[in-house]
């Protein structure tokens, strides 16, 4: 048959060509191209009607008796079973924390007929009767509770709890996860569109989402997957915080069997900071930052208005001493912080470094802080720690390096002594210490014990480091706010083997005198004509619910952390003040 295209052939062909061109442009990324890097989200709950409704439902349930969020949309029999189950004393006790206090959020995830596989020795009677299985989840403890009950008599036959087990989420929570994922800027940017809800499907699960895990936060997490050609975008959603955790592309196929989880996302993203130094710029400041194997976040090549300021700064070690037993037998620990994989770190980062603005009282930006957080997985449970590297850069050329601790520690009375290492820029330095009346030059390596008398009254400066061959003259001003640092100061000749690279362990955890570790590098060597390294070891006592402390508290049915951070570190103030 012959079709005449006279009169319509041209526009038709043109139209087809446009359509084909559009499809070609809209073609999903080729599987052969490298996968985009994963992205960690800010974990901020979106302002969505579904999120607001969820919060309202939680608030209502926590105020009810029992404070358990029931499952809606059940048939008559299942609804009756749910009522019977929620009347059982063992179930009503689920929201009650072991140590007392407000109710924990417990929610019914499912009410279904019990199958043979659900039955145990205690529920064999269900083989001849109609029994139901009710699944409940306690968010604060990540505990799944399974209840087998007789639908006819209403008797609860068995209540079994499984800690650290996450059940399949009900459809309404799956839909909520999809809504949160669709609204996330990270997902929209990755897909270059607002994905329709139908795009988040996964045939393997009835709920339409793939199970995931938030191993570190122990929150309830699922992962809507957006299929895009031969690739899939995992969007891990935290249903406890009601926020996106992060996204990661995978190839569809065998490699996608492995779930993308909170920990895998965090480690993949953060580990990039361990491979190559990352250049950062803010105003007149430039530097490179890199996560080390055991010395936290190190900054190098710091310049101010193009002038070398610092060669290197980092925290090499965290000591903590607890009072226990005889005075000569204290107990404590020695922590290294560093990369989340392949490192000597005991406390690892779970997020990337952030740049936070510093403003004055009138909200005018005056500086920026580079902050890297490190934490144990179960912080703030006792004997889990959280530390931060914090570098503050001010527009006027001042800089401050801070060691931050946010608990929890293993007990009261602990004292944290981080070892800060700072290497000023310059080929050589002269060092002088304030002797109460004037600057007294140091001829060789030595240390200073904490002493208020050795701080210049005008500005609190304790050391003056003047550089030759490039580099500023810096005043070292021990921190006094919120409490005095009480720091030991050490000045040594800069040696590459004495800390340029990772120093996995330095000194002893538990001494209270000058023997904190850097004294081992003091020979003493003459300082004349030599570049120097400044070691700064402040002393930060922990005070319960006041400083160097953190606690979990129940808020709206879930556990959140209340924090009382403590921070210490020296100011480096240029002398004279640089002119812009």
């Amino acid at each position, binding site marked *: 048959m012959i079709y005449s295209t006279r009169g319509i052939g041209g526009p038709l062909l043109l139209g087809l060509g446009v359509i084909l061109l559009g499809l070609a442009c809209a073609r999903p990324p080729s599987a052969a191209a490298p996968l985009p890097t994963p992205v960690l989200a800010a974990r901020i709950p979106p302002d969505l009607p579904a999120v607001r409704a969820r919060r309202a439902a939680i608030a209502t349930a926590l105020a009810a008796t029992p404070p358990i969020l029931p499952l809606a949309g059940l048939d008559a029999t299942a609804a009756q079973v749910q009522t019977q189950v929620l009347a059982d004393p063992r179930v009503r006790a689920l929201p009650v924390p072991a140590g007392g206090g407000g109710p924990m959020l417990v929610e019914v995830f499912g009410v279904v007929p019990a199958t043979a596989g659900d039955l145990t020795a205690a529920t064999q009677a269900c083989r001849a009767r109609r029994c139901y299985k009710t699944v409940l989840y306690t968010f604060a403890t990540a505990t799944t509770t399974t209840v087998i009950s007789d639908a006819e008599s209403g008797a609860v036959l068995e209540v079994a709890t499984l800690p650290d087990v996450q059940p399949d989420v009900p459809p309404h929570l799956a839909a909520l996860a999809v809504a949160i994922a669709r609204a996330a800027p990270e997902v929209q940017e990755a897909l270059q569109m607002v994905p329709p809800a139908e795009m988040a499907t996964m045939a393997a699960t009835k709920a339409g989402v793939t199970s995931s895990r938030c191993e570190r936060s122990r929150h309830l997490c699922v992962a809507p997957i957006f299929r895009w050609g031969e690739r899939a975008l995992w969007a891990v959603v935290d249903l406890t915080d009601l926020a996106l955790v992060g996204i990661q592309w995978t190839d569809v196929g065998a490699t996608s069997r492995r779930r993308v989880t909170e*920990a895998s996302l965090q480690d993949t993203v953060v580990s990039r900071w361990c491979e190559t130094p990352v250049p950062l710029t803010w105003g007149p400041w430039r530097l490179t930052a890199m996560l080390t194997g055991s010395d936290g976040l190190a900054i190098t090549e710091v310049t101010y208005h193009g002038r070398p300021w610092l060669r290197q700064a980092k925290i090499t070690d965290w000591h903590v001493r607890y009072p226990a037993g005889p005075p000569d037998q204290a107990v404590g620990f020695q922590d290294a912080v560093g990369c989340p994989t392949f490192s000597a770190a005991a406390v690892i980062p779970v997020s990337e470094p952030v740049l936070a603005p510093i403003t004055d009282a009138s909200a005018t930006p005056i500086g920026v802080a580079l902050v890297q957080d490190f934490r144990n997985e179960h912080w703030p449970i006792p004997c889990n720690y959280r530390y931060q590297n914090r570098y503050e850069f001010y527009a006027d050329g001042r800089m401050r390096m801070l060691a931050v601790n946010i608990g929890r520690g293993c007990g009261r009375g602990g004292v944290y002594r981080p070892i800060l290492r700072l290497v000023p820029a310059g080929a050589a330095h002269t060092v002088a210490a304030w002797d109460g009346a004037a600057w007294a030059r140091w001829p060789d390596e030595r240390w200073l014990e904490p002493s208020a008398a050795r701080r210049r009254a005008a500005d609190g400066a304790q050391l003056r480091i003047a550089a030759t061959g490039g580099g500023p003259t810096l005043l070292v001003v021990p921190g006094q706010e919120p409490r005095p640092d009480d720091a030991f100061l050490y000045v040594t000749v800069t040696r590459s083997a004495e800390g340029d690279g990772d120093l996995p362990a330095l000194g002893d955890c538990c001494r209270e005198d000058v023997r904190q570790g850097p004294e081992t590098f003091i020979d003493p060597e003459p300082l004349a004509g030599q570049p120097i390294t400044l070691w700064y070891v402040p002393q930060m006592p922990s005070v319960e619910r006041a400083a160097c402390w953190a606690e979990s508290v129940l808020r709206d049915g879930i556990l959140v952390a209340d924090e009382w951070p403590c921070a210490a570190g020296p100011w480096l103030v240029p002398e004279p003040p640089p002119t812009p």
Partner: protein
Amino acid sequence: MTMDHRPPRPPRAPRGAAPPRRPARRPWVLLICGVGLAVGIVAVLATILGLPDPARRAGGLRAVTACRGTPQFAPGYGFRGGVILSTSLPQRMGLVLLDPAQPGKAFQHPSWTQAGHLGAVTTDAAGNIYVGPAPRVSLATNPPAGATTIWRVDTRTAEMTPFLTVPAAAPPSPRNPFGILGLAYDCDTGSLYAASVAGSAPASEVGRIVQIDPDAGAVLSQVEGIDALGIVIAATPTGKRLYYGSAREPRIASLALDATGAPRGAPRPEIDLTDLGADIQERARRIDILPDGSLQVTVIRFRFTLEPTQPRQLHARYEAAGQRWVPGPAPAAPARSIRPCRPTPSVRRPGRRGRRGGAADRAAAWRCGGAPRPRAPPQLLVVAVRMGGAAAPRLRRIGGIAPDHRRGARGERDRSSARAGGRPGGAARQPGPGRRWGWTDPRPRRPA
């Protein structure tokens, strides 16, 4: 100390007793007795000769560690029965000997702390103990330079000395401070195996599994390019294999071993731990072969850091029909059968390479004092350190040796802490898993 697989003997008649009067038997009774006798003889022969047992026919594995002996020094320190070797007690660095028959009894030779914190541990037929250093939370007591040295505790003197340094593609470093992570012993060939991850980096897997002659202290063979954690030697229906847990992925693979015990061929994937319920970050820290041929896998989260971690156990059984490993139910708590078994001159060392020594070992065990017991778990119970962390030993019956560091709900621990505000003096709490207790005194200490 051996694991006795053989069926129990019928009791003997007491000496001096008159033999029982034999009643008249009917022919069919004689036939039944004859058949039963024949079956019994065959069974005994089968066991002695090591014919395949049901576990093997079902596709399961059989451990080859029956010959491992109790250290000969143990009775001299008051250990009456079996011993438990622990490298993971939270308040003790190094190796500690525990007595399952005497809760609270612990022994540590002065030399057992010189290698710092320890991890993998195993024994040989003579009762020599082999341990590998493993840093716990800090490198202060475990500098990377010593991470690839195996230490041996002499079965007679209890002295721990360096035994052998496993060759590495690159030395340990602060980016990877780990070395030896797995040790295993093969009774059949008398070989010691060590798994080391020294020198590996995020983008390069250069770890090694080496076969060692413990008598000569020499490396016999090695496989390169494998980062392994727990290792175990097993007899399978198709020959001996070395099973190892990958240190990089949640999986177990295996290597074939030839008659001399040398690894041959490429690794064969065996188990994806995520199929057993593991996280993608969990690794097989220890693999135990149970009497029925199934596997008990102790997993930890391991990312080549010193971050504290909690171990947990998974179980797998072999499904012969599908020729695959599937999640298995957790076995019931095995009956404790600690058999006092003092090594005697008749205790045989394992057969030379290429010969089956298992039968001789079992025969020796049979002679090693005491009445026969039902099949029981190994009497030499090894508790390896959890990488980067420490937890109370899994043997809860020890009780009192180590505090329970299991983490409860976040709220629970904090409530306890709140109540602790009433404690006078504000005593420090026990540390959680992975925390090292540091003891100091005013005297100068040796450099780390």
